[in-house]
C-alpha cells in the first residue's frame, strides 16, 4: 500500500504516546494515576479449588474487601487482578492463558496457595503444570494451603504498595504510527 503523506501545518504541536508517558512520569500525575489504580483493584471471581472458597469469603461480609476498593467481578474484561487460586492442569492452562489475555491493561496476577505456586501436594502428578511463574508475570505470591483470608488481604495490601511505586513504562513508538 502506498504511504499517504500528510502535510502538517508548522504551527501545530504534535504529541506522541511516548511524550505523554514521559510527561506523566516526570510529574505528580503518575501518583494520581497510581492512587486511582491501587484503590480500585477489581478481582476476577475465579475459584479453582480450596483457595477459591477463601477468595469468596474475603469478598463478602466479615472480611469485606470493599473497604479497600477491592471488589469481585464476574468477567475477565472488567477485572484488574487475576488470582490463580488453585491447581493448574495441562488441560486448563490454555483456557487460563486465554482468560488472562482477555483482561485489559493494566492488570496484575496473584498466585494464591501452594498449588498455584509450586504444584503443592500434587507437584509430582502427571497432570500438573508447575513453574507457573515462567508462564504468567506473577506480581504477588500468597503461600498457604489454603491461605487464611487475612493472608489474602495482606497480599492485596502488598499489591497496592507495589502499584503505588509503579512507573509507567515508556512505550517505544512504532515509526509507522507517527508518520516518520
Amino acid at each position, binding site marked *: 500500500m502506498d504511504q499517504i503523506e500528510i502535510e502538517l501545518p508548522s504551527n501545530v504541536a504534535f504529541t506522541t504516546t511516548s511524550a505523554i508517558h514521559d510527561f506523566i512520569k516526570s510529574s505528580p500525575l503518575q501518583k494520581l494515576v497510581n492512587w486511582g489504580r491501587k484503590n480500585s483493584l477489581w478481582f476476577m471471581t475465579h475459584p479453582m*479449588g480450596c483457595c477459591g472458597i477463601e477468595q*469468596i469469603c474475603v469478598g463478602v461480609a466479615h472480611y469485606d474487601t470493599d473497604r479497600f476498593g477491592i471488589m469481585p467481578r*464476574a468477567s475477565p474484561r472488567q477485572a484488574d487482578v487475576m488470582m490463580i487460586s488453585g*491447581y493448574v*492442569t495441562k488441560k486448563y492452562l490454555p483456557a487460563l492463558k486465554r482468560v488472562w489475555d482477555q483482561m485489559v491493561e493494566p492488570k496484575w496476577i496473584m498466585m494464591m496457595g501452594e498449588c498455584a505456586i509450586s504444584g503443592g501436594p*500434587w507437584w509430582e502428578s502427571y*497432570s500438573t503444570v508447575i513453574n507457573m511463574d515462567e508462564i504468567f508475570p506473577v506480581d504477588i505470591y500468597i503461600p498457604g494451603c*489454603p491461605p487464611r*483470608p487475612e493472608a489474602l488481604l495482606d497480599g492485596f495490601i502488598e499489591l497496592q504498595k507495589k502499584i503505588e511505586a509503579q512507573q509507567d513504562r515508556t512505550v517505544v513508538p512504532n515509526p509507522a504510527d507517527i508518520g516518520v
Partner: protein
Amino acid sequence: MTHTTTQITSPPKPSEILLHLGPQHPLQPGPFLLDLKIEGETIREAELKIGYIHKGMEKVFEDRTYIQILPLTDRICYLASNSNNDVYCRGMEELLGIEPTDRAKYLRVLTNELCRIQSHLLGIGEYTTDVGFLTMFIYMVREREGIVSLLEAITGSRLNHNYARFGGVAHDLPPGYKEMALKTLGELKKLVKSHDEMLSSDSVYLKRTKGVGVLTASQAKELGVAGPPLRATGVEYDLRRVEPYLVYDDLDFDVITQTDGDVFSRVKVRLLEILESIYIIEQVLDQMPTGPYKQNVMPYITRPAPGEVYSRIEDPRGEMGMYIISDGSDKPYRFRIRGPAFATAQALPPLLVGTYVADVAAIAASMDSCTSEVDR
C-alpha cells in the same frame, strides 16, 4: 430420560446454536465446561466436560504412606474435609482392626455435622447468587463464618481440617466449647428459620424455582444420584440411617425429605438439614462421654494386612466412598475415590435437556456439585 445420552451427538442445525459455559464462568464453583445446544431458549442437548482441575489424586495416593494420605484427603472436597478424613479413617480402621475410642466417635460426629452445616450454607449461598438473590449469599457467608470459627476452635484450621486419626481424633475440645457452640448454633437456628421463611415467601424466587429442573424418584435412582438431590424426590436414603456408622444409631434425627424434586425442594432439603444437624450437635454435646480422645499407640508407619475395604459415609453431597486395596506394604496398592459430586455432575446434562437457558444456573447450582471432587 432413560436413553438420554450425556453428550452432544450431532453438530447444531441452522436453527440451533452451541453455547459454551465455561471453563471460567462466574456461576461455577470451579472450572468445568458445560456445552449446551440450544434452539431458541430451549436446551436440546447438553454435555458436561470436566477434568480441568484433575489432580491425579489416585496416582499420587499410591505413592504416599497411609499417614501421609490423611491430610491429602482433605483436599478431595474442601467443603467436606471432615467427612473425607472420616471415611478414610474408617476404612483404615477396618483394615487395621482397631476401633476409635468412644469420645472420638462423638467428636467425629460433631465435626462432621458442623462441616455439613458450613457446606450447606455455602452451597445455598452460591446457589442464591446464581438465581440473582445476592443478599442471601451475603447472609449465608456471614452465618458460615460462625460455624467456621467453631470448627477452627476444635481443629485449628478454617478449611482443610485434618482432624480424624486412625482410632481417634487429633485434638480434644477446647475449654468452654459447649457454651460457645450452643450460643452460636442457637443464633444460627433462628437465622436459618428466618432465611427459610424469606426464601419460601419471595414470589419472584418461587417462580424461578418451583417446578424447575424436576427429578422424580425413579429418575433420580436411575441417574445414580444420592444425597440432597435424591432426598428432595422423596427417597429416604441417608447412609447415616441405612448403614449407621460412628454413633449415629444412638442419636435421634430425621432424614429430611421433600416430595417435589425440583430446585426449590433441593434447597429446602439443605436448609432443613442444617436445622437437623444443629439438633444432632446439641445431642452430641450433651451425651459426650469423657475418656481418651485417641488411641495411645499411633505408629507413623502403618502396614495393614493385605486386604481391601470399601468404606462409605454420608457426605454433605451424598455417598462418599473409598476403596482401598492394601498389599501389606506401607503404601496403598490402589486407592479409589468414589465422590458424590461425580455422580451428581453426571446427572446434570439429562436434567438440563428441555429446560430454558435462564434456568441453567439455578438447576446446576441446586445440584451443589464440587468441581474439585468431580475431577479429583
